[in-house]
């Protein structure tokens, strides 16, 4: 926005922080409402929340109100500082992820050539938060859940990172904005009608990314860390009231942000075919396009979540190390050969 460029850094940053807050809360709220409350209910032949507001649309506000009034219980034996600090670390990790996302030619939070690299780096911070929660609770279930979560998140971070490398090779940049432009200006066999969304050329990477994303978000079939039937919600066992809700918000906000990253890397980001990507109107339409793509991708996440049973711990590690990582390495090699020769 030319308007934005005239403002000083602090004014611009205030606007960006506001937009970031809206992006995180709006997306997380939509996901909980549309996917967790309604989609799942319909899949299981029930109506879901219907009481608060028309068709239960105000259920979310009711939930927040409920959790605000709940007593905050910190177990006597818990490591109190680590226990209290864990939600801060987990939510901060989500917020740091959001900064790399572009929403239009001028609607970005930061312009940094290390974009996707930064995102991959800060996404690992949540592992520390989860381990802190598991350890600080001083509960056998929590410790086991925290360890399982750590083992799972680090194992699936490798396919996630290696899948991104394929896109970075093709776009020749780690800046997410540049990756969007590379897709918008791309051509499919000389035809540039819809650009070149990398899902077409990096289909394997897209599959790897979605699978690893499912595991990173600890959604079923990768939900051993929070397995409620064996570990009683794992690292969240001892958390109650508002602290529990914070973990919950972080879970859904992270689902939204990861889907947004996948949308930028593979589905062309905020670009609409037919409209010049530098047109000023894209600053308004771009975020909407991103929102639609995020809701679409998270639909897949939740569809899978409520369709498949849970893996065993050994099956989980086997899938990551013996299938996804070799496949990701193969994808890098093939992409590199195509890049150099064609």
């Amino acid at each position: 926005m030319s308007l934005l460029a005239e403002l000083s850094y602090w004014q611009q940053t205030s606007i960006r922080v506001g937009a970031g807050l809206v992006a995180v809360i709006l997306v997380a709220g939509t996901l909980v409402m549309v996917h967790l409350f309604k989609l799942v209910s319909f899949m299981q032949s029930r109506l879901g929340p219907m009481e608060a507001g028309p068709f239960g649309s105000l259920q979310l506000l009711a939930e927040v109100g409920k959790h605000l009034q709940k007593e905050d219980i910190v177990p006597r034996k818990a490591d109190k500082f680590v226990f209290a600090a864990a939600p801060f670390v987990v939510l901060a990790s989500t917020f740091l992820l959001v900064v790399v996302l572009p929403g239009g030619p001028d609607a970005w939070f930061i312009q940094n050539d290390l974009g996707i690299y930064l995102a991959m780096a800060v996404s690992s911070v949540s592992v520390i938060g989860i381990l802190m929660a598991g350890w600080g609770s001083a509960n056998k279930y929590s410790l086991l859940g925290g360890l399982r979560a750590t083992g799972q998140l680090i194992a699936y971070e490798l396919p996630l990172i290696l899948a991104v490398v394929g896109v970075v090779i093709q776009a020749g940049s780690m800046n997410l904005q540049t990756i969007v432009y590379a897709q918008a200006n791309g051509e499919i066999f000389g035809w540039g009608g819809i650009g070149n969304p990398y899902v077409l050329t990096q289909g394997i990477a897209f599959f790897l990314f979605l699978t690893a994303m499912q595991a990173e978000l600890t959604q079923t079939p990768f939900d051993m860390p929070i397995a409620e039937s064996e570990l009683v919600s794992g690292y969240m066992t001892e958390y109650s009231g508002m602290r529990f809700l914070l973990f919950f918000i972080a879970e859904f906000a992270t689902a939204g942000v990861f889907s947004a990253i996948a949308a930028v890397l593979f589905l062309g980001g905020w670009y609409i075919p037919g409209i010049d990507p530098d047109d000023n109107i894209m600053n308004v339409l771009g975020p909407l396009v991103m929102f639609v793509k995020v809701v679409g991708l998270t639909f897949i996440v939740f569809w899978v979540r409520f369709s498949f049973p849970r893996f065993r711990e050994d099956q989980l590690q086997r899938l990551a190390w013996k299938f996804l990582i070799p496949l990701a390495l193969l994808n890098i090699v093939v992409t590199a050969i195509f890049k150099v020769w064609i």
Partner: protein
Amino acid sequence: MSDFLRSYLTVGIFGLVAVVLVGVLLGLGRILRPSNPTVQKLETYESGVDPTGDMWSQANIRYYIFALLFVMFDVEAVFIFPWAMRLEAYALFGLIEMAIFIYILLLGLIYAWRKGMLRWV
């Protein structure tokens, strides 16, 4: 301040906002919620029975081995990124260099595989 450093300042501000947001939400709850701790309530949860033994119990050594493997592969993934960005400029030279690098990476994985480190028993 250069644009590059400024973008990291923005990242820092976002982190700070997250911490403040969590603080505000927890502070808001403190005003609204009751506080009535009892001895039984503050007990560690263990399926409704009195907890036994040490809470920080021993865990499977496999977690540690997988963490070690991860560190090795993650550090190597860091080296792949700069190459991936500049591949067009390096062309065939870069391709062969990286093929050797990924081959060595793969050897490490195969070694761990053969040693049975990827098995969860």
